[in-house]
């Protein structure tokens, strides 16, 4: 059976959750790199969009304006031809050329044999294909080579009209612009990559802080804490949360250590006693009655050990917070009078007067059974440590949602020096040397207080002890995180 299981484990281990699925190529597994790449990509894309927009708004606009001007020219020349025929057209062309201050207009009117009739071009450009209306061609005007944007218009009777603009300067400007934008894009690309590298570094640094701490802690050094930069940013808040968590873990670890030490110490005594009794009886019992008596005493000792274990388990259960699901609202007034009823008989027997001061109704929110047990523990102490003839007072009052339950006696009290330790598991004071108990009563009260986001205060009653258990009266107050209550 065991072997079969072991074999199972061996077979299964390669698919264990520790082996990560190879979902991405290795280099993409760095979150820092991924963020940097996304940054660079976004940066590059927006730069490209900007460049395209600039180009459209400058070079593109100039092109469109030229084409519009040419089209308008062609339109009006065509109208002239319709009105006045060929002579009117020739005059208009000559007028236009004369009026053209910028000297950038190009006109050419040719007959069906492509011979020039009017215009400022010497001959019909051979490079102009017959089937195209618009073209950008190299021309030669007054001996200077240049570039022109032209539109061809066919007139009836085989005549051809060419209208255009010299765009040499504009083309140079456009080339300049294109070049500038290209270089700018290149610079942007380099900047983007540099930014990505910087971002990756920042990201890694912010995480390194957390991850080195975590690594140190998994290696066993629980004292390590994440460094807070003091900038108060998201990373600082994350670090604070992690530190709080570590704080709580180490408190719990301390508790565990303290408890295991205490168990080793405090349970050894009764177990040793039981063992000794049994061995002694086995070796030396003179009669059956002796044997019975020894066994019975050993059983009583072991019952004591069991009771201690049960109390420890209960405290641990309360501290784990699992019982918070059983919280409910209830009236604690009958609970208090029942307790006084239960312990009143004990008090009376010891000659102690047990007095109750409680309002008619006492709202509490929490685990009724645990609260009952906590108050019972306080009463038990007060009665146990009070001298005969004393007074023990159980009082309750509510203020701003919290209910304070006070148990005050006039016994020896707890010296201030050890008062903070009184709630530790297994702590027993000098006064307790000759009284029964295991030193777990106040530890339970403290655990119950913390579970309810309340508090337990031990104060001097001059003389005696005044224990005040503060508990929430409403669900909202009980919902406060336990950590706050712990620091309080």
């Amino acid at each position, binding site marked *: 059976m065991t072997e079969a299981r072991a074999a199972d484990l061996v077979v299964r281990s390669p698919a264990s959750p520790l082996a990560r699925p190879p979902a991405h190529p290795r280099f993409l597994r760095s979150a820092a790199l991924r963020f940097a790449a996304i940054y660079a990509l976004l940066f590059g894309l927006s730069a490209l969009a900007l460049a395209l927009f600039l180009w459209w708004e400058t070079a593109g606009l100039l092109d469109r304006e030229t084409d519009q001007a040419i089209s308008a020219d062609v339109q009006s020349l065509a109208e002239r031809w319709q009105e006045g025929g060929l002579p009117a057209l020739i005059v208009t062309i000559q007028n236009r050329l004369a009026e053209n201050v910028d000297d950038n207009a190009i006109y050419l009117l040719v007959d069906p044999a492509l011979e020039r009739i009017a215009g400022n071009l010497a001959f019909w450009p051979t490079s102009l294909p017959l089937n195209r209306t618009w073209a950008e061609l190299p021309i030669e005007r007054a001996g200077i080579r240049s570039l022109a944007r032209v539109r061809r218009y066919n007139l009836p009777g085989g005549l051809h009209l060419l209208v255009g603009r010299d765009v040499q300067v504009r083309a140079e400007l456009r080339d300049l612009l294109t070049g500038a934008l290209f270089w700018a894009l290149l610079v942007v690309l380099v900047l983007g990559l540099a930014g990505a590298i910087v971002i990756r570094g920042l990201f890694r640094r912010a995480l390194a802080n957390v991850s080195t701490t975590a690594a140190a802690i998994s290696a066993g050094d629980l004292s390590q804490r994440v460094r807070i930069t003091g900038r108060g940013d998201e990373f600082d808040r994350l670090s604070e949360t992690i530190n709080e968590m570590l704080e709580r873990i180490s408190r719990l670890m301390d508790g565990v250590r303290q408890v295991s030490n205490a168990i080793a110490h405090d349970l050894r005594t009764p177990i040793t006693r039981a063992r000794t009794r049994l061995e002694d009886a086995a070796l030396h019992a003179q009669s059956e009655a002796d044997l019975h008596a020894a066994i019975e005493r050993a059983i009583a000792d072991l019952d004591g050990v069991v009771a201690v274990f049960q109390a420890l388990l209960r405290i641990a259960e309360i501290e784990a917070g699992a019982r918070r699901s059983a919280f409910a609202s209830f009236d604690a007034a009958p609970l208090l009078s029942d307790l006084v009823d239960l*312990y009143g008989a*004990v008090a009376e027997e010891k000659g102690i007067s047990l007095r109750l001061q409680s309002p008619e109704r006492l709202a509490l929110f929490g685990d009724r059974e645990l609260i009952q*047990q906590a108050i019972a523990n306080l009463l038990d102490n007060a009665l146990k440590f009070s001298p005969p003839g004393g007074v023990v007072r159980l009082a309750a009052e509510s203020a701003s949602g919290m209910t304070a339950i006070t148990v005050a006696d006039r016994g020896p009290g707890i010296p201030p020096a050890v008062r903070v330790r009184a709630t530790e598991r297994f702590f027993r004071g000098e006064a307790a040397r000759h009284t029964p108990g295991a030193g777990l009563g106040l530890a339970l009260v403290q655990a119950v207080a913390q579970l309810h986001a309340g508090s337990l205060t031990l104060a001097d009653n001059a003389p005696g002890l005044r224990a005040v258990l503060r508990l929430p009266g409403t669900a909202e107050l009980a919902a406060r995180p336990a950590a706050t209550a712990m620091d309080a």
Partner: protein
Amino acid sequence: MRILVVEDDKDVAGFVVKGLRESGHVVEHADNGRDGLFLAASEPFDAIILDRMLPGGIDGLRILETLRSQRNTVPVLFLSALGQVDDRVLGLKAGGDDYLTKPFAFAELLARVEALTRRGKGEGPVTKLTVGDLEMDLLSRSVRRAGQKIDLQPREFLLLEYLMRHAGQVVTRTMLLEGVWDYHFDPQTNVIDVHVSRLRQKVDKPFSSALIHTVRNAGYMLRTDGQ
């Protein structure tokens, strides 16, 4: 009485079975959930002592749930090493009648099982309890012994009522604490002893014979001397 013990631990089971037989009961034993469920469902018992954790897939809670779904109302006492409070609540919610945490004293187990079987007989509404010359009227909430009226505090009345309802049976301190005060924890001090002795002052002291007896290492029993 016929009692079924479903418990897988050999030592505990042997100890319980022997003790119950010595006390005059007829005992069947199953050491796993399957057999336990089979026995419980096929034979009539006056009570079942059921371990919470059992080997073989069927645990105590499952057995109980199955029985209850078959309208089997046999009284069930849970035995459990899980001493947590929620666990007790869970067991009682599932239809368990009582709950005892391991380790336990046999006297405690015996007392509780016997109390259960009494409860299981279904006595219907009772208005009057009588033990020897002690009479309790549950309607007028008055108590008389040998015709003489006894004045009791409300809680003393409840305590005596509990003892009278279990007359002739051992009643342990924890049973009283749970049954009369509804407390489910160890009160550390012997509070119950004090209350019983106060009750004795009123019920026994003025009369020639005692009705409330202390049972050594176990608890108390209310009975007439002749019993």
